[in-house]
């Protein structure tokens, strides 16, 4: 059967795309002819894949990521590659080497990150659904900031084969869409076992969202409404939680004491993993050619200092430092203890309640260039990183506005109960629409 094509020539006012396929091929299947955008850190055979970094400018992957193969089998048309913070390192998509993406709800504001291009492409009506990746909130944050839905799946449910690695133990590929149903549909295509990813689990997702949440127990952690969380945002989210109660859910106050250490544990872990993962970018096998007449270190430093952005170099250096002799015990080893404590806290709470709810982000979308200090940017991730450290599924669903900008309600669930967080988000969405 010959492949058919769709024409995809959007006016990209938000700089959501780094590359588009004017004519995108597709086959038959449940997603026949549906335009799907893909974050540019996911390998696409024959389509330039840059991670929004100058070090991969011109890189054409010789193979497809596992999820891309699944999209094609489902008949989807991969219509383009979306902008991101370089290698996924950021919360605004301003750290792209190819310019920031703008928020379709207010072009003076950031779309969130790092999957900001994917979220803007969906929110701006250019595609119905998109793939992003979430290492510490990179799907949920832009979903919240742009007023769409995004799911970080349970670790292991979606293959990472062909995802250009930044922090392997934390990141997952996941779906973004305008509706919970679209997110659920895309999840059913991409989830499942892949022998090329040693962390892949045989837990396919075959689920139709169900809005009945009568009797559901929802944990409300005090830390998600405390210091650093904008009171107006907290108010919007509390109202949304009242809506869940009206639908028959029961709320239970709870506490996650280990949250205090979550952000530090997250940044130590991800920078350490990044320092190792990004060592492969030397310009030799792909990327800008190093001067082969110079010595190895000299040539390597020259390429990397020019082709990596500031945030990427900062994280590589932080990770290198944290893993260096004499500091490993102080930083990396402690971070792993803190991570185990967080996992234990979530296990404990989720043995008493079915899901945990709170805001996705502590504020609405920042203005462009509002956050210039790296530490204050890192602090914005405080409510999203715990799910990555624990490996559990988490979804962000739009739940109203504050100051005219969208606010996201975050639902976190037990490990491998992605279906349940989808159902809660669906119940809320159906009740308010």
């Amino acid at each position: 059967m010959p492949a058919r094509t769709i024409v995809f020539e959007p006016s990209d006012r938000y700089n959501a795309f780094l590359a588009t396929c004017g004519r995108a091929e597709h086959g038959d299947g449940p997603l026949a002819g549906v335009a799907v955008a893909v974050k540019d850190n996911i390998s696409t055979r024959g389509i330039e894949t840059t991670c929004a970094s100058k070090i991969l400018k011109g890189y054409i992957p010789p193979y497809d990521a596992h999820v891309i193969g699944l999209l094609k089998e489902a008949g989807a048309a991969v219509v383009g590659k979306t902008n991101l913070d370089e290698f996924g390192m950021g919360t605004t998509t301003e750290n792209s080497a190819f310019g920031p993406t703008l928020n379709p709800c207010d072009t003076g504001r950031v779309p969130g990150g790092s999957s900001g291009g994917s979220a803007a492409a969906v929110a701006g009506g250019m595609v119905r659904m998109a793939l992003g990746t979430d290492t510490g909130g990179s799907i949920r944050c832009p979903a919240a900031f742009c007023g769409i839905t995004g799911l970080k799946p349970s670790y292991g449910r979606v293959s990472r084969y062909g995802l250009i690695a930044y922090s392997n133990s934390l990141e997952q590929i996941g779906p973004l869409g305008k509706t919970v149903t679209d997110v659920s549909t895309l999840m059913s295509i991409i989830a499942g076992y892949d022998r090329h990813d040693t962390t892949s689990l045989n837990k396919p997702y075959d689920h139709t969202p169900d809005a009945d949440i009568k009797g559901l127990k929802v944990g409300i952690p005090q830390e998600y409404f405390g210091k650093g969380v904008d009171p107006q945002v907290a108010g919007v989210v509390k109202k949304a939680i009242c809506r869940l109660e009206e639908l028959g859910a029961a709320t239970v106050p709870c506490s996650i004491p280990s949250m205090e250490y979550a952000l530090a544990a997250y940044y130590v872990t991800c920078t350490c993993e990044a320092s190792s993962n990004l060592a492969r970018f030397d310009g030799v096998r792909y990327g800008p050619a190093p001067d082969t007449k110079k010595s190895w270190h000299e040539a390597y430093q020259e390429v990397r200092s020019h082709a990596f952005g500031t945030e990427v170099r900062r994280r590589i250096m932080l990770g290198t430092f944290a893993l260096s002799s004499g500091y490993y015990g102080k930083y990396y080893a402690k971070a792993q203890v803190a991570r185990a404590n967080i996992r234990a806290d979530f296990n404990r709470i989720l043995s008493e309640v079915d899901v945990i709810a709170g805001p996705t982000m502590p504020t609405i979308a920042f203005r462009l260039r509002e956050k210039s200090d790296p530490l204050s940017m890192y602090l914005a991730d405080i409510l999203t990183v715990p799910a990555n450290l624990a490996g559990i599924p988490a979804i962000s669903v739009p739940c109203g506005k504050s100051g005219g900008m969208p606010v996201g309600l975050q639902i976190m669930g037990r490990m491998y109960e992605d279906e349940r967080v989808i159902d809660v988000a669906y119940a809320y969405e159906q009740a308010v629409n």
Partner: protein
Amino acid sequence: MVTEDDVQHIAELADVGINKDELGTFTSQFNAILDYFDTLDAVKGTAAAQSGLFNVLREDEVEPSLPLEDVLDNAPAQEDGFIKAPRVM
């Protein structure tokens, strides 16, 4: 506290290069971030091994792989089917 010399040393270890005019900013940002990381000092104990984890291995059997041309396509400097790299020795 890390000094500018420390940051210079880390940049060399990480092979990311650093300019004189970046050094001050990187150093102060590093100190702010590392101060924040110090919250981990209060974490006690050791991490218990996570249960349910096991190694995933396969037999060491040769399987089809990408054609050589496809793999070399992205290499900016090549010679006789090899990738050219800076000298190591």
